């Protein structure tokens, strides 16, 4: 059986770029429309090229998500020999696959979204035909949002593990603390656990601070073979040392994998492979980036990947492990809850910055390995990024 190891160590990130999340947030709030999704992707792309000291003509492959790659390539004036659309963070795997299989030598991963300025609806009557069946099938009872599904999952998890709302609140508090020292983050004002508990419920047991912010932005990463990346970027090249994916689609619309398993079967399968291929374990990970569309995804992931366990999760969160100075730094830029909600993409850039030791006040001292974990809709995906320098 494949252990998904062909990519392992063979591909590296040489350039990263983000748009100005906080600044664009203010502009959108003031009624401006700073760019469309393609425009945000273009801005991020230019920054990633500059970061890597590359020209756009050096790029021979693109992978995007949400955007149409035909329009994207046209917008950027590029004729490439490999282009693909991936779902969210799977773009990293798609791009790496293109490189190891010789489809392209230098791949740009490009994402942009004007979800805020275009008034994207998450839930309600804006739920279109292309949405997952679980967003559409329960509409007669008023359940159409991912938040509603996560509220059901979180409630069940609280019943099963004894996790309290106050303990869950530590996730949002910790991530806001990280965001408070990240100048590019959208939400920077620190919050206390009392602020968290005083905030309104959206779908109980989830409160306002458990939800990702909906903002505009773009993200770009540039990938090469590790061999070439080291020549081009030296110690600033960050290697993808292992990836793994394990899907739980059976009975997904009835929510069984969420409510009965918290996606743990997928977590465990992906953990076994990613740590096996990388030759490391949870103790060797210096920081974690979790796709945090909702705060409770952090405890699900940390428990499922063995950083703690379901029966200890409450005290683990209470101990302040996740925030600045904690034992297990999680979502060190502020994550989707406080930094920027760009569907897992910002987490890749934050992983790279941490491993280049360029994360400024949010730098995790001596970080050598950062793990990314996502389980969007039961598609458990994980990657371990590794520093090349000493």
């Amino acid at each position, binding site marked *: 059986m494949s252990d998904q190891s062909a990519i392992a160590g063979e591909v590296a990130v040489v350039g990263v770029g983000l748009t100005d999340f906080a600044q664009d947030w203010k502009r959108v709030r003031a009624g401006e429309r700073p760019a469309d999704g393609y425009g945000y992707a273009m801005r991020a792309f230019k920054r990633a090229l500059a970061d890597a000291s590359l020209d756009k003509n050096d790029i021979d492959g693109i992978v995007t998500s949400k955007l149409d790659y035909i329009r994207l390539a046209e917008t950027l004036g590029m004729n490439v020999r490999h282009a693909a659309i991936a779902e969210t963070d799977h773009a990293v795997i798609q791009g790496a696959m293109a490189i190891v299989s010789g489809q392209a030598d230098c791949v740009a991963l490009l994402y942009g979204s004007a979800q805020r300025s275009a008034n994207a609806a998450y839930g309600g009557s804006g739920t279109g035909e292309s949405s997952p*069946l679980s967003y559409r099938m329960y509409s007669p009872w*008023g359940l*159409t949002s991912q938040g509603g599904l996560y509220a059901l999952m979180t*409630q*069940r998890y609280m019943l099963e593990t004894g996790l309290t709302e106050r303990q869950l609140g530590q996730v949002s508090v910790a991530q806001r603390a990280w965001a408070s020292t990240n100048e590019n983050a959208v939400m920077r004002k620190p919050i206390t656990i009392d602020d968290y508990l005083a905030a*309104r419920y959206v779908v*109980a047991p989830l409160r306002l601070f458990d939800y990702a912010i909906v903002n505009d932005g773009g993200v770009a990463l540039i990938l090469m073979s590790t061999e070439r990346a080291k020549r081009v970027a030296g110690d600033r090249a960050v290697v993808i040392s292992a990836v793994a994916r394990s899907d739980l689609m059976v009975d997904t619309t009835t929510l069984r994998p969420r409510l009965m398993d918290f996606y743990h079967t997928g977590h465990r399968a992906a953990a076994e492979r990613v740590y096996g291929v990388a030759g490391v374990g949870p103790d060797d990970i210096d920081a974690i980036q979790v796709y945090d569309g909702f705060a409770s995804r952090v405890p699900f992931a940390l428990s499922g990947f063995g950083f703690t366990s379901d029966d200890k999760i409450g005290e683990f969160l209470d101990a302040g492990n996740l925030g600045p100075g904690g034992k297990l730094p999680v979502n060190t830029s502020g994550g989707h809850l406080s930094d920027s909600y760009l569907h897992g993409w910002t987490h890749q850039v934050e992983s790279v910055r941490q491993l280049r030791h360029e994360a400024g006040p949010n730098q995790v001292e001596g970080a050598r390995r950062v793990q990314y974990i996502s389980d969007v809709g039961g598609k458990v995906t994980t990657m371990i990024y590794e520093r090349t320098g000493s």
Partner: protein
Amino acid sequence: MTVRPTPIKGVYFDPFWEFVQERRLRVQRCQECGHQWFPPSAGCPECLSEDWQWLPVAGSGRLVSWAVFHKQYFPSLPPPYTIVAVELDEGPILVADIGEGDVSSSLVQDEPMELVYEDATSVDGDDFLIYRWRRQAEAAARA
């Protein structure tokens, strides 16, 4: 809460909702391997057989989880309202609401639940029967 978003339509959802109009919710049962599944689809997700039948469910199950909507998503559904996930005796989990208001404080994990059918009107103006969940304890108290 009588005006509701229109139920989903489709090749397999249309007959499913026709059965609901007869106060008899059905899931699919595979004639080859006996697997029972929901939501309705073309064939058995276990063995891929397309030889299946509509199996009427008993209409009872156990409470798996709940969530209380405080944000308004639809003009005709004012919050708060409580959604529950119930595991049918036949196996599949079925999500529906349990009524207006925040009733979460009265709910107990794994407590027995039963399906009820009620008149509703869709936002498109069509009258139809909808299924909802009710606590068996509440039904017993009423009897």
